[in-house]
């Protein structure tokens, strides 16, 4: 395989140290710690990852892992900035990395967002790198810094290959971790059939008739699916199963 590991020698050690850390991640929560380490290793202020259409995750909500302060994340979420953030919208439209200096800031709201971001310590420089995965999964990885323009240009020129590769590695780590977190989940055929009809509003008796099972059999399969989905009742189980795309009942 022609792998991402073809690098300019001077960067190789730093890069491989970070990649090793990603490869050895135990759980999804550790991703943030490694993002911190990567930021420090490259003299960056922050790294922010937003994944879209990640397998086993809700389709509508992006998967976020960021080193920003919780206050900034809350502010960004409260203001629904993700809906107007040009870095996100442009990143979804293009494969080219976007330097935040080149973003059109004529709109007042967008200028305000960038100003607030800088005050919140996000960093005065930033670059967003779009990632495309195998199965329609996408991501945008933002790297920020606090240096002057000239320094920033040098940093990019020096490390852009690493930054591209890092973005893809972060994405792969997220996809991998969401898979293992859900290790228990894949429902059996009967379990997903029962859950499907429950989601369509059928009672246990009706499901038993539809699937040619006993009522006890239906209860058995449904309670197994509750355990696998970590749900307290059928309603929660069906909504979780729909969000994870394990079942796909009509609206």
């Amino acid at each position, binding site marked *: *395989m*022609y*792998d*991402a590991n*073809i*690098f300019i020698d001077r960067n190789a050690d730093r890069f491989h140290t970070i990649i090793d850390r990603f490869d050895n991640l135990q759980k999804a929560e550790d991703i943030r710690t490694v993002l911190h380490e990567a930021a420090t290793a490259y003299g960056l202020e922050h790294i922010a990852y937003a994944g879209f259409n990640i397998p086993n995750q809700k389709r509508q909500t992006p998967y976020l892992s960021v080193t920003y302060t919780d206050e900034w994340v809350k502010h960004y979420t409260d203001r629904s900035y993700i809906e107007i953030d040009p870095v996100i919208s442009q990143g979804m*439209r*293009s*494969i*080219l*990395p*976007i*330097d935040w*200096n*080149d973003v059109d800031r004529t709109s007042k709201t967008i200028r305000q967002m960038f100003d607030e971001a800088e005050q919140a310590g996000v960093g005065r420089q930033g*670059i967003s*790198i779009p*990632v*495309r*995965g*195998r199965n329609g999964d996408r991501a945008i990885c933002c790297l920020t810094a606090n240096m002057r323009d000239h320094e920033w240009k040098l940093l*990019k020129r020096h490390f*852009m*290959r*690493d*930054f*591209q*590769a890092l*973005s*893809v*590695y972060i994405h792969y780590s997220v996809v991998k971790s969401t898979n293992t977190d859900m290790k228990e989940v894949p429902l059996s055929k009967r379990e997903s059939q029962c859950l499907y009809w429950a989601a369509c509003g059928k009672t246990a008796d009706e499901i038993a008739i539809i699937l040619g099972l006993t009522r006890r059999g239906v209860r058995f399969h449904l309670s197994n699916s509750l355990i696998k989905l970590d749900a307290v009742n059928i309603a929660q189980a069906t909504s979780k199963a729909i969000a994870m795309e394990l079942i796909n009942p009509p609206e």
Partner: protein
Amino acid sequence: MITLINGSERNEFSFIVNEMHKIRAQVFRDRLMWDVSVENGLERDEFDDENPLYLVSVDENSGIVQGSLRLLPTTGPNMLRDVFPILLEDGNVVESANIWEVSRFAIAQHAELPSAGRKLSYVTGELLAGIVEVGLTSGLSEVVAVFDSRMIRILRSGGYPPEIIGGPKKIGVCMTYAGLFEISEEKLKDIREACGIKHSVLDPQSTKRLFAA
């Protein structure tokens, strides 16, 4: 000059994009006789729906579209993986954050003649230089492409010889190869020298619109 257009912007650039698909029909169906699908004189395939980045050579003075190519990351859907895996032996794959794929490299017939004292047309050189310029800013180490033996000659005389990694296999009537092309300042210099290009070929308006300058 090279205009950069995202697939997602095809409606905003419908003139250039239509001309591009027309030239592709003339090149791939009419001249190379590939089995491509053409509708209303426009050649399009499923990878045009994957939001690629197009590099289109447009004459600054006349506005005439002269040639084009498209770029797709190898981490997502791409032709080598999804259409031509047969070119790479033993299930080898090219899937790297630092490698994008070049496909549908097409030069309009009127732009094909080599400039005086050169071995290849200016438009070919412009597109090759465009690949390297975009690659340098985007942090690529290589691009990968599928091409036929006729292209190898063109690429060599353009100062941009491929490193063959797969094939040759006979696909249709052509001997077909897969190859890697290095992205580096040195290669950009080679191409510029071979093709008589002195400055950046990228249209400043589209770089301003699209990416990290």
